[in-house]
């Protein structure tokens, strides 16, 4: 039996009296060592054909969790690379039959049968969505149980079935309303997910609403609707051509060359969708701020008095660095192809080098820039009231899962955690 001593025993009052009831969190996260770790992680992940990624992620999480302190004590991430690796293997074995069936069906659909391909992609996406929900459930549970502060662990209620049903119900409503109801259902689902989470013996609760989100969501929704409409119009000639290709096998009439895309429609569609995406980004930021501010742990209330414009620089700088770096990478690639000549064997290495650069860039922007800045902003602005709740916390008796988030790794990134 392990018994860890408390860093601060809440039963013994501090020399300068009881700690204040209100306060915040402190974030101390120097970027230099984190960048070094991320670069090393990328290199080792590539050298091990991806196997190192479980240990890589664990190390990054340890740094991020450890950077956050509450009442002078840092959070600790207690997960291990081995747990993630084994969880992934178990999920892989469970998913393998589905992967095989999808691969076989994929091989049997003729390449120009766009209609059938599209229907197949929809079915696969729906299946992946279901798995994604399961993955989100397991990943949340894993991250919460591996988060420790003063010896206390987080956790999530055991109700996978209800979790899936509630989310499916919400997604169905979003689908039926062509995305219009998303803010309302986002709030409902956030409140539900928060309500099944706990830290020690205290339960989280959230009373988030969609009020204040519509003014930023609706314009972005409109841009998407018009943008995708334009895209479908632009796609029509290709659809007609593909039908002609299929007919050609019966009639013997050559369908003619593949139609060129009508640039105007595509440019308009691309601009509208890009603007819509940017608008959705704004919505996502405002939503995160509003929802976190509507959360509480037992009687301890969270408040995040932060304006969207105060954090807007985070995605802007990230996107700018990304775009400039990609342009530079293309320029370097073209330079090397020209300098070495198209037949040079050394050019086989170019994609590998560019991939290393691209992956490093990806992790630097998403972790070393975005996550660090987000944490710093939260640390600067988050206010907690009735922190006395923390003195009363004990661990719960529910055992933590022994395997890592597995499924999330096997089906790809679902946007959880570092």
């Amino acid at each position, binding site marked *: 039996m392990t018994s860890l001593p408390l860093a601060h025993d809440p039963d013994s009052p501090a020399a300068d009296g009881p700690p204040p009831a209100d306060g915040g969190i402190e974030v101390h996260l120097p970027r230099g060592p984190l960048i070094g770790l991320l670069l090393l992680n990328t290199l080792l992940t590539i050298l091990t054909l991806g196997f190192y990624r479980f240990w890589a992620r664990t190390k990054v999480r340890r740094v991020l969790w450890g950077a956050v302190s509450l009442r002078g004590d840092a959070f600790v991430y207690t997960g291990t690379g081995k747990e993630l690796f084994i969880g992934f293997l178990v999920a892989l074995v469970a998913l393998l039959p589905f992967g095989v069936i999808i691969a076989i069906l994929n091989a049997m659909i003729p390449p120009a049968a766009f209609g059938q391909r599209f229907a197949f992609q929809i079915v696969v996406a729906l299946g992946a969505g279901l798995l994604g929900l399961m993955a989100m459930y397991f990943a949340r549970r894993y991250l919460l149980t591996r988060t420790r502060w003063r010896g206390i662990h987080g956790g999530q209620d055991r109700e996978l079935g209800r979790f899936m049903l509630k989310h499916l119900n919400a997604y169905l409503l979003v689908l039926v309303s062509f995305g219009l109801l998303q803010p309302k259902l986002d709030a409902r689902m956030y409140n539900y997910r928060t309500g099944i989470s706990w830290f020690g013996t205290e339960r989280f609760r959230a009373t988030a609403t969609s009020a204040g989100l519509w003014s930023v969501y609706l314009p972005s929704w409109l841009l998407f609707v018009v943008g995708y409409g334009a895209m479908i119009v632009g796609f029509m000639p290709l659809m007609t051509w593909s039908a002609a290709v*299929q007919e050609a096998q019966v009639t013997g009439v050559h369908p003619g060359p593949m139609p060129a895309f009508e640039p105007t429609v595509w440019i308009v569609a691309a601009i509208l969708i890009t603007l819509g995406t940017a608008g959705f980004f704004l919505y996502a930021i405002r939503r995160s701020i509003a929802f976190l501010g509507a959360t509480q742990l037992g009687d301890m209330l969270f408040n995040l008095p932060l304006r969207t414009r105060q954090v807007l620089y985070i995605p802007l700088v990230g996107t700018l660095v990304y775009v400039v770096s990609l342009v530079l990478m293309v320029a370097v690639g073209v330079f090397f192809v020209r300098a070495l000549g198209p037949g040079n064997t050394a050019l086989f290495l170019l994609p590998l080098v560019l991939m290393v650069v691209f992956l490093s860039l990806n992790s630097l922007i998403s972790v070393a820039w975005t996550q660090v800045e987000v944490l710093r902003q939260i640390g600067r602005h988050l206010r907690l009231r009735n922190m006395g709740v923390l003195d009363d916390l004990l661990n719960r008796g529910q055992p933590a899962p022994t395997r890592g988030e597995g499924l999330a790794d096997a089906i790809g990134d679902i946007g959880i955690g570092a």
Partner: protein
Amino acid sequence: MQAQYEDRQTGRAIAVRLTFLDQWLVIEREDGRELDRWSWRDVAPIPGDFPDGRMRVGLAADAHAVLALDDPDILLRRAHAAGMQQPAQREHRVRRDLPLPVWLVGAVLSLVLLVQFVIPAMAGMLAPLVPASWQARIGDQVQTIAATLLTRKDGNAQCAAPGGVAALKKLAGRLGPMAGTARLHVIDSDLPNAFALPGGHVSVTTALMDRADGPDAILGVIGHELGHLHHGHSMERVMRYSLSSALISMVVGDIGGGALAVGVSQMVESDFSQDQERQADAFAIDVLAQARVSPLPLARLFETIRTEHPEADGALVEWMGSHPTLSERINTLQRAAGGQTAGAVLEEGEWRALRDICRKPEGN
């Protein structure tokens, strides 16, 4: 009933009251606030010797919090009186995990077994099960797309000059009845290439014909492609590639994984596809011998391509490429050369007509 709630992580313990509600064992602080609730079915004694001699019960051997009981019998009697179901276990077992190296070696071994043996066997088994009409549909469409993509700018999308078509039929006819069932195409392209697709499609590009020193070489190329059709390589290859890239992209994962998956699949695939190319070469040598046609013109065609593209003969190609190195193929063909071709496979005029098969009719 009274008990002690022990937090084994922080070492804190507090007195609690226990009650039963539905399937739950409800644990309350002494002031009545609920602390936790456990599913009674999952509650069982925790193994181990405890210094105070009291029994610990909980939800798992490694649970963060447990209950210390002075007299466990009282709890059982209360549960019985409340009509609770019997707990599922007599005592929790300590879970032990295999060491990491065992998992690692097991994972790598399984992966190698899957990619090297299971997937090829599955592809070999499944490919013939795809109905011929489906295979033909896939082949038909790929043929149309490939012809569209490969045809050079301002080239003829339909190479069907009557003289050329007749010459092509005569040429392939030399190889016997199997060639008669194939659907032969010539593509007006700048890339020297030839390929076979399900549904009996065999295509040769004009650029390849331009590099041949006579029709015998093109007959060798057709023989090679017929070999792929004979062995059913195309569908099997599509299946195998789909399965192995699906598996590898699942294992490798993420964005970087996508790129790695292509590379690794390519390496794995090149092994099998090189074997298939050798099989197709062997088939070509056989049918050429039966047709009494020398394989040496085909070897010379490969030499021409090797001179043009020396990089297609390096170590990297041997490792990653879909075909064996050109040098290896040239040696095989030269070794197999038995004698001279008996009688011309095409007359000079027919060969010219075949090379002009893509010429557009006058006035168009």
